[in-house]
């Protein structure tokens, strides 16, 4: 249990204390670093007010805020289908699912805020096009079957990524991921069942399902990030116990799971090169178009500007509401003061 790790106090060095006047900055850093290193070595957790290397803080802030942005932007392709869901049950499920993603964004922004950046600032960066988010959400959701494929493949890949993040060395991030993973558990299943229903339905429905799987498969595999030899930051993230498995490792596991599940669906993966390598004991897949990945990430995907514009608009349209509520709250506080006086 984690509690054991979190309470391994007797074996730990005394945490760095209040600096005495006149102490050299270099010594402060060194002691902080030593403490931080012990926490890493013990696979314990760093909490918001602990000393942490500036690069660790920066990496986390970038990763968590990008993760939050992905949840928020990721609402859009699915939200677009809420109004057209083909049954009331599916409408309710989809609504609850997209709503969950808003919550996920919120939990993650909160975690990022503990690192010293306001949500407002992060939102500004997002709508100014200065922040990144998972490039998969820049693909369009064209048919109802995309709701299935997104749940099954995109949430599925996200879960694969996120489950190990529950143990991320930064406490608030790990805790946010625990809550998120619990909520995610229905997302992938509902997607899978949409596809299953379509696959067992009319020929047109089955065709729709296969088409959606064909379109979302490769982008979903690319959600794990560039291949390990082209992922310069991965090593450091793993050393910091933020990341627990490499991109390729997670991708390979994910492919293995999809191979099993696609059979139950009665569909196929659009990849003739999927195979289990007996030597490496790993699943392998066909080549991915990393050029396209980079293009989309750089803003040249099918829906980039549309997604950002929608977020910008919601934020701008809501400004007067946020201002009204803030102003009302201030007035209430003043009233209370007057009353007390």
């Amino acid at each position, binding site marked *: 249990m984690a509690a054991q790790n979190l309470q391994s106090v007797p074996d730990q060095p005394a945490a760095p*204390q209040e600096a005495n006047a006149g102490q050299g900055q270099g010594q402060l850093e060194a002691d902080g670093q030593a403490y931080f290193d012990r926490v890493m070595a013990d696979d314990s957790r760093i909490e918001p007010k602990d000393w942490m290397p500036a690069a660790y803080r920066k990496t986390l802030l970038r990763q968590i805020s990008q993760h939050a942005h992905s949840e928020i932007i990721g609402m859009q392709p699915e939200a677009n289908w809420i109004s057209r869901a083909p049954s009331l049950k599916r409408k309710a499920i989809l609504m609850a699912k997209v709503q969950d993603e808003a919550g996920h964004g919120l939990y993650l922004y909160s975690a990022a805020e503990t690192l010293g950046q306001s949500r407002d600032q992060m939102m500004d960066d997002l709508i100014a096009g200065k922040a990144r988010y998972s490039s998969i959400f820049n693909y369009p959701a064209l048919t109802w079957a995309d709701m299935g494929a997104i749940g099954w493949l995109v949430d599925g890949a996200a879960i694969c990524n996120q489950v190990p993040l529950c143990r991320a060395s930064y406490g608030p991030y790990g805790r946010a991921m625990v809550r998120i993973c619990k909520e995610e558990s229905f997302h992938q299943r509902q997607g899978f069942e949409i596809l299953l229903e379509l696959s067992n339905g009319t020929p047109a429905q089955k065709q729709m399902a296969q088409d959606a799987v064909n379109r979302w498969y490769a982008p979903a595999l690319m959600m794990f990030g560039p291949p390990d030899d082209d992922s310069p930051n991965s090593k450091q993230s793993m050393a910091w116990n933020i990341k627990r498995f490499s991109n390729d490792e997670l991708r390979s596991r994910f492919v293995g799971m999809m191979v099993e599940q696609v059979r139950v669906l009665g569909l196929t993966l659009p990849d003739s090169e999927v195979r289990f390598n007996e030597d490496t004991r790993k699943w392998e897949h066909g080549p991915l178009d990393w050029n396209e990945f980079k293009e989309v990430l750089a803003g040249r995907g099918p829906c980039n500007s549309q997604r950002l514009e929608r977020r910008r608009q919601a934020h701008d349209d809501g400004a007067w509401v946020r201002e009204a509520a803030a102003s009302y709250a201030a007035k209430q506080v003043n009233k209370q003061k007057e009353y007390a006086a």
Partner: protein
Amino acid sequence: MSPHGNPEEPASAAAEIKHEAPKASPAPAPEDHHGGNVWPLWEVFVRSSRGLSHVHAGSLHAPDAAMALRNARDLYTRRNEGVSIWVVPADAIASSDPDAKGAFFESPQGKDYRHATYYTKSEGVKHL
């Protein structure tokens, strides 16, 4: 090693006192550059069922306490996670200095006699 085990066994070497240690690299203070339309941060505590304590569930933004409670309800109890909610302005929470845990939390270390497990001779005696 159990910190509260057999008294014959040294539980832990009291951590060395460091007289001079660094102050944490301070987190940059969140900048409030939008003034008017930014809602403050609240911490949310949820009681999952009667008889249990409120436990920190997460945080959220809200213009005031009334809305914070409602947002907390919508955000943190959609799956029956709670029967009661507290919200607290994040900046109203005073916390112990994380960098002082060596001194701040040293005293209880090694005082095994506060724990029942210290009293081994009475082990096995019924209803004790």
